[in-house]
């Protein structure tokens, strides 16, 4: 795992939140996550990475933050996890993936279209093998969310 693969995603997250919601998320201290650990989130956007590094980048949100962000975009208060919420998260993750792509231009990396996983305490299947997973929590004035990265660097091990 190379930190230079991760920073573009963090910058993309900050950019996308500022652009879409005028929020300035704060990156907190990162920590390690075990593969089988079930995260306490309600909705996640998953971006696949292939090329000189392989793995997943996952953006996870609690229900209340996802609903609040949706309310900002649609102008209507939300209290259910309906299609609008999924669409909002999908759109946000799309923009983040697109922005990160620019920051990753110098590497031979391919970034998949994001997919959305929903459900309380959902679990992500990480790549097999000894792939370390790091979670970077973010705090915003409207709540917390997290960016988790599990990358297997196949060029320099």
């Amino acid at each position, binding site marked *: 795992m190379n930190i230079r693969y991760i920073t573009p995603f963090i910058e993309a997250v900050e950019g996308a939140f500022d652009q879409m919601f005028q929020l300035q998320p704060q*990156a907190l*201290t990162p*920590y390690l996550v075990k593969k089988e650990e079930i995260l306490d989130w309600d909705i996640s956007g998953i971006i696949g990475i292939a*090329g000189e590094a392989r793995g997943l980048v996952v953006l996870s949100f609690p229900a209340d933050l996802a609903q609040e962000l949706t309310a900002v975009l649609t102008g209507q208060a939300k209290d259910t996890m309906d299609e609008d919420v999924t669409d909002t998260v999908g759109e946000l993750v799309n923009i983040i993936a697109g922005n990160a792509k620019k920051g990753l231009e110098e590497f031979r*990396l*391919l970034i998949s279209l994001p997919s959305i996983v929903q459900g309380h305490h959902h679990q992500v299947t990480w790549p097999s093998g000894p792939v*370390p997973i790091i979670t*970077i929590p973010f705090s915003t004035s409207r709540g917390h969310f997290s960016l988790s990265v599990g990358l297997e660097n196949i060029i320099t091990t």
Partner: protein
Amino acid sequence: MRKFFKNVLYSGIQDRLAPEDQVKLLFINSIIFFGLLVLTFFGVRDLSHGDMVLGGVTLAISSVVLALFFLIRVTKTIQIGAWFLPFLMFGFFTFLTASGGANSTVVLWILVYPIFVVFLIGSFWGSVFAAVFLAVQALLLFVPGLSPAAAVELEFKTRLIGVYAIVFTFSLAFEIIRLQAQKELTRTASELAGAKVQTDGILNTVTEGIFLLNPDLTIGDQHSHSLKAMVGKDDLTGRSFLEELRGRISEKDYAAAKDYLDMFFLPDPPWHLMEEINPLSETTITGPDGLPHHMTFSFRSVELSTGRRVLGTVRDVTESFELNRKLKEEEDRSARQMKHLFQIIHVKPELLLQFLQDADQEITAVNRHLKDQKTDPSQLIEELFQAVHAVKGNAALVGLSAFAARVHALENMVAAFREKKPLWQDFLEMTVQLSLIQAELTEIRELLGRMSAFQRGIEASSADQDLLLLALEKAIDQLGTDTKLAVDLDISEFQPHLIPEKHRKLIKDVLVQLVRNSYAHGLEHPSERKTAGKPGRPRIRVATTPAGPLLKLAYWDDGRGIAPEALSRVFEAGFSTAASVGLHAGRGVGLSLVKQRVETAGGRLSLRSVQGKGVAFDITLPLS
């Protein structure tokens, strides 16, 4: 409309004829129409002059011929042979000469004849016809009284013959040149067609993507079938190569590829470098299936008559790339594990286990601090430093020096945090390092797990299963399969652990031999057993009885027993009751060998047999 005229002029059989015959057909049909037109014209003229009979007949003939021509063409194709016309014209022109015509000028028609015949029936027969025609015309012109044309001035007649000769010579020369040119054209065309068939064959079969790039970097119309599959589009001709790549390769490769390909069309690119600086020599492309493919491109400049082009070839090397990657991964992993293994085997197991447990605890504790976000930063750094330091110290203590070196680097990083307030990037870098250390610990633990599983495997096999019993069961199993005769083995009174180590091999060999003997001579198949009133499956029983300083081993089967007359000889070497030598019986060495080996070991072997009931062997061996 165009098709209709073409069909009429070629008589509808254009496709079936060689080019030179097509021309002739066109020519003949044109003459027919022209002739009809002239005939109609004269008919109308005659009518207007009041010559009703002649005009009517002429018009009637022309309309009948025209009607017939179309009628026949509709139902079937017609062909007027090239040979027909020379005869027709021969007659017609001769008639004109002989009749004299208006002012005798119609004799000029004869000048047309050589052109027609040479063209229609070729140089040889055309010359023959032209010569005969000339002779006939000369006869008519020069012999007085034969026709009014003979009255024409002599000078005019000789000039006419001269011009005829010139026209004939030029017709001949023209026809020869025409045929030659046509032959050449046909040959080139068929060569080109042959070359095209081969090129198509190659381009459709080759697994590489092959294409030519025009100076504007569009794809040329000659490209291999595989390229279409790689791009996922059928019509690539004229499409921009770079546009097809855009979005499928990384932005970096895209920009580099554009610059690189443009270089090929510079007046004098650095040819010797071109291969080396190819940015697409190894690249990852999103395929039409949406998955990443590893591709190798190579580009060469090609000078064509129409200017410079770039020949591109591309191969999908995903499979070999993936294989290499896996191999390298495995190699790295096993190299690391060997290093660990080498160090582990020098460490006391309990120390190592303690170390792993401690290290795991330290990292988990630190991670908890990282995760809760509540720990004061300077406090967090202190916690981190102490945890990392402890792990490093313990690793060095148990002798995992490579691992300790790795942790040492992390320790330095954390130590620097004490001097300079870390940014989140620094924390990220630190966490990445921590994750790698944790991954390595996991690997060591897995290695240990496998080693102890291996150890347990060895212990389990020797403790749970007696090898002697295993050999006995295996022999029965094997013979049962070979002879298709299943046997019940009774070992309820068999205690293999009573057998002293020094006799184990002997007893194993003896038991296996006795089982073979039972199968070969004693055990009957179920049908035979039923008539004898025995249970369907034969039984074999093995039992041990300790008797003071001796071990008694009993072997018994409930087969047909040994015939009384053979009983006294079964232990003789070379004696066998089997009629033929097979895999399991007939050599006559089995029982004599058993007896001999038991006696060599200081024991005794005796045999009892009741015919129809079975055989019992009793073996006694000294324990000490």
